[in-house]
């Protein structure tokens, strides 16, 4: 087992390790030297204000962008290479990114179709179960355009879980939803984490979500300020660091 997946104290095992990562495009650098890790079985939140680079960081974590500096390692497999086979994780994009020309069931079943030799009837059965897991039993034959915002996010989570990854990345899972649906999504993430032992990396700026779901979090500072805090969000709320207080107290610094 590599260093990234080594056993830590108290039975903890590192699943995602990020070292000295620089994120940005071309000459536009958003953050530099980001170093953190996510343990197996935890819900880890990446926080920060709009424009701090949270979603960009997620793109680097899942291998959609190639780091110019630094290193991302998942489950000890070395740098993520999306062309090298089935990635060991699922991703839920901010707007869902469901394929508009396919039904919800086909969206969820796509990866199963591609990566297994299951007959269509078995793929459909698994897709239905995954949809039921997120409370969308009736949406199997619907097109994404027929779903509400909350349903699209749920369907996208179901699609991310299609091949039972041990890690899922969720980009703003509860943003833009009404408070009740947002809390339902939070409950779903917690249930998936507790029920399936799923490790979740959640990008969010919703404080209620953070307190509801996250075991640990990092806060990205503005203007390339790097990681300004790391730890249990409930403890970080009491931090004396003005940059952290500003975020957790929802108040801009005067």
């Amino acid at each position, binding site marked *: 087992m590599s260093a990234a997946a080594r056993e830590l104290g108290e039975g903890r095992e590192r699943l995602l390790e990020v070292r000295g990562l620089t994120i940005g495009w071309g000459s536009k650098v958003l953050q530099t030297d980001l170093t953190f890790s996510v343990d197996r079985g935890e819900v880890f939140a990446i926080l920060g204000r709009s424009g701090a680079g949270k979603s960009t960081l997620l793109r680097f974590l899942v291998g959609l962008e190639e780091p110019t500096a630094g290193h991302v390692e998942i489950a000890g497999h070395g740098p993520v290479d999306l062309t090298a086979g089935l990635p060991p994780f699922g991703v839920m994009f901010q707007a869902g*990114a469901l394929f508009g020309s396919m039904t919800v069931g086909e969206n969820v079943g796509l990866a199963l179709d591609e990566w297994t030799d299951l007959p269509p009837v078995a793929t459909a059965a698994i897709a239905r179960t995954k949809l039921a897991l997120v409370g969308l039993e009736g949406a199997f034959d619907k097109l994404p355009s027929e779903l509400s915002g909350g349903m699209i996010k749920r369907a996208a989570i179901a699609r991310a879980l299609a091949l039972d990854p041990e890690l899922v990345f969720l980009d703003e899972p509860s943003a833009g939803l009404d408070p009740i649906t947002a809390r339902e999504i939070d409950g779903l993430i917690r249930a998936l984490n507790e029920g399936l032992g799923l490790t979740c990396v959640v990008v969010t700026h919703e404080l209620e979500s953070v307190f509801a779901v996250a075991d640990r979090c990092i806060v990205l500072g503005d203007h390339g300020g790097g990681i300004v805090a790391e730890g249990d969000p409930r403890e970080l709320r009491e931090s004396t660091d003005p940059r952290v207080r500003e975020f957790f107290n929802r108040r801009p610094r005067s």
Partner: protein
Amino acid sequence: MTTVAAPHAGAGSSDRAEPATFTIERSPGAVRLSGTFRTTEAARAWQELHAAVASAGSGELVLDLSDVKRMDGGVIALVVAARAELATQGVTARIVSTPEHLRPLFELYRGMERPAERVRRPSLGGLETVGDAALRWASELRDAVHFFSAVAAAFVRVVRRPRSAHLKELPWLVERAGFDALPIVVLISLLVGFVMGYQSARQLERFGANVYVADLVGISITRELAPLMTAIIVVGRSGAGFAAEIGTMKVSDEIDALRVMGLQPIARLVIPRLVALALVLPVLALVSDVVGIAGGLFVAVVSLDVTAHAYLLETRRALVGWDVWQGLIKSAPFGVTIALIACQQGFAASGGAESVGRRTTTTVVSCLFTLVLLDAAFTFTLRMLGK
């Protein structure tokens, strides 16, 4: 007249029917604004404000708002902008006596602060504009070459391992690009054959060479017009469609969603489209050959006193298999070209709807240009082959 007392009166929250009556008076060292200022009347306010502050010279100017009853946000923005404009001319304009109910809005519009210095984006000179365009062009070219090499690599993989091809979509793509295009291809080919026959009829009639309309129509349709016309129709229908479809997938993260599932978007989206157009275009060109010749036949029979039998005999005599083959040989690369350009432009979309629209337009223009170039190259090469 109603007195507006609400703190956000300027935002237009209350009585919309209140008429916009205002005056802007100039006195030495001061401009006095009074009355009710509405955004709907902002153009007049802007003009009068400009006229009033135009002769400010230098030094200090007071903008006195004590008699302002009401001022919409848009007009406040103009007052603040006029003050900033004056600052660039060396005039310090102070906004004074702002009525209490307007102060929050002025605060919001930064009217109470010192005017911010304007940062003007340096305009590019002629040389820089050319350089900038060249750099962008080079970057586009690099991306396109990168894309085409990725397609070539995917194609090689498919040839080596045909099972890796995602050809499930192929029948649907062939139907959409080919079968659905038949009515328009038939109609246009018929009309082009008809028009060609008709235009040449009068010239040929003068020499008593009526029957040679069959040669003219037959050769020009099969060698040039059928492949080119069908390609142009396919650019407008399928090329633009592919670019818009893939572009929308790109800007809505669907391409990235495929990638994070470990699926290869090029093998999945580009190869089937490329194969579909390469298959469909020669068939459409063949249909266009037949229908175009039928259009010429119609003209010959109706206006040139040539019998259908004679026309067909002459067509058969004039046309050799190579004429038809020339057209069909060209059509497959035309299809590949259209699919490549359309998919490349779709993948290059970024941002939002504007980019998808721009990429779709570029697809059509680039395809037409490239097709004509390719056609010229083919005509030359095939001629050199000695036929």
